């Protein structure tokens, strides 16, 4: 691990960190009357093709469970709306009509596609929700065997990956994929959005202090107990039972993209599920990228993008970013700004601990 010394002199990073610190301090800690005990309640469900955990501290277990139920329902709803593999989901209907017809969708679906296209635009196509055909060819889109696709076929499929061929009409909220065979895959954004929606529902239901973990992506709100923030361990990218680091968050989303979540070793090389939209092959610059952002959607998208383009690109464009990131590069070296570590109480756990 090495600290980047040049970044210490970067005003941008100092001010960014100060911004996050201020936001964290601005949230009042909940005082606890001893007469009213707080319960730490947790629940787990298998949704969005992953495990979703809720943990909350609340004065009433029953109220908390009711809120959990509503928030789980919200995740189911969002999942059904955006899952391309679910028959008759809005995304499935858009895909089914690729090259044929524009499809009317709810404003919610329309808006998330619109946001995805804005990300695609500003990330120069390195984040692209039209990656569907390539992901399917690799076999990463379900409980299937992963295999290296035929080169010629991959060449053809990569031609279908082009966010500029997604045509939106705001007036009647329709989406049209102009090329036959195009497939939308919202894998890089849907989970983050679902987490944000679940967080909103919990807050509406009066649960203010909670942590949502959906397949390793996290949104933490409020405090665990007193002024203790939520304490999170970050899995080591090469040692599944070890932690790389621990950190503390409140009012913050954390998403990690890693080459170890879904992968297959073929002839000694690691083939994983984060595909570079420009090459059609798994991105190779990093083992993992962890992003801290105000919303889980933002964290999710940025983690996917930065995993593909790497640390140097991030440094080149950090003038406008509203997020912070930690990289574990292909050689396994940890790279992040020192003030990021300060802001989140980073403690690196090299071996043991967990």
């Amino acid at each position, binding site marked *: 691990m090495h600290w980047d010394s040049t970044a210490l002199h970067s005003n941008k990073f100092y001010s960014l960190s100060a911004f996050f610190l201020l936001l964290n301090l601005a949230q009042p800690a909940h005082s606890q009357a001893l007469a*009213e*005990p707080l319960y730490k309640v947790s629940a787990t469900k*298998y949704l969005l093709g992953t495990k979703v955990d809720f*943990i909350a501290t609340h004065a009433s277990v029953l109220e908390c469970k009711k809120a959990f139920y509503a928030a789980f329902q919200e995740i189911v709803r969002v999942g059904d709306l955006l899952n391309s593999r679910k028959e008759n989901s809005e995304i499935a209907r858009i895909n089914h009509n690729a090259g044929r017809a524009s499809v009317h969708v709810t404003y919610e679906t329309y808006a998330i596609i619109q946001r995805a296209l804005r990300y695609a635009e500003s990330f120069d196509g390195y984040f692209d929700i039209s990656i569907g055909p390539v992901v399917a060819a690799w076999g990463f889109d379900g409980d299937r065997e992963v295999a290296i696709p035929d080169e010629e076929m991959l060449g053809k499929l990569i031609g279908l990956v082009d966010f500029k061929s997604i045509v939106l009409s705001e007036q009647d909220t329709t989406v049209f994929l102009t090329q036959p065979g195009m497939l939308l895959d919202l894998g890089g954004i849907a989970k983050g959005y679902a987490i944000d929606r679940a967080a909103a529902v919990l807050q509406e239901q009066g649960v203010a202090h909670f942590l949502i973990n959906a397949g*390793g992506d996290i949104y933490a709100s409020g405090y665990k107990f007193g002024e203790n923030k939520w*304490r999170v361990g970050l899995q080591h990218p090469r040692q599944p039972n070890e932690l790389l680091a621990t950190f503390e968050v409140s009012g913050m989303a954390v998403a990690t993209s890693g080459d170890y979540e879904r992968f297959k070793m073929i002839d000694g090389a690691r083939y994983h599920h984060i595909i570079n939209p420009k090459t059609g092959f798994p991105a190779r610059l990093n083992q993992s990228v962890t992003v801290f952002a105000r919303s889980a959607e933002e964290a999710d998208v940025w983690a996917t993008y930065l995993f593909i383009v790497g640390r140097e690109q991030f440094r080149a464009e950090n003038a406008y970013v509203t997020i912070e990131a930690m990289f574990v590069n292909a050689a396994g070296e940890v790279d992040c700004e020192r003030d990021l570590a300060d802001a989140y109480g980073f403690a690196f*756990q090299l071996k043991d601990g967990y």
Partner: protein
Amino acid sequence: MDRRTFLRQMAAVAAGATLTRPFGAARALANVREIEDFSLSIITDKPDKTMAAVENLLQYSGLKLGNLRFDEALLPGVHMADIVLLSHNRLVNYKAQETSLARGVYELAQKLELPRQLDNPVWMNISAGQGPSQGQTANIYQKNALVGQIELTKDRHNIAVAGKRGEMVFAIRAGCVEVEHASCKHKTCVKMGGIRKPGQHIVCIPNEIRVTIAGENALGLDSLAF
């Protein structure tokens, strides 16, 4: 199952220990006055009603209660439902003690007509204080049902658990629980290797099975990012 066996098993469940390990309850009855470190385990078919009563009971117990942990799981099959109160990992004879909590627990047991046999009841636990920290038991959940508890101290093989899509087979080797076989294609859980520390878990998403090591994580972690 007689009442004594039941108490021993429930005490063990509450302590995060194994179902079959003998529990020294008879030797050491805790004084309920030290109750700010306690664990209340209830097997019931009316979880909501029970929890409402417990919340009420604790609020008016006169105890200085700050932070409590709540856990629950379905228990598939026929189980003897009852209430077990532990303090500092020792069994409390709530029928004999005169504190408001002990009395409240006794009244709750009467109201719920416990003990009695129930089909597919819910196990719930409310605990305060340190709680168990030993990682000697692995709890196996399918969806939200507690389908098995395995002691980590003895090597074992071929512990099969039925999942949503197929079977998962666990083994205990050198104090670790590991997946020997999984019916899914990507084998993420097999690649994970063995776990042994409290708070660690192995998850099989396609089968909706998770295995956790009982107890509080040593680093006080609430969640794992990956």
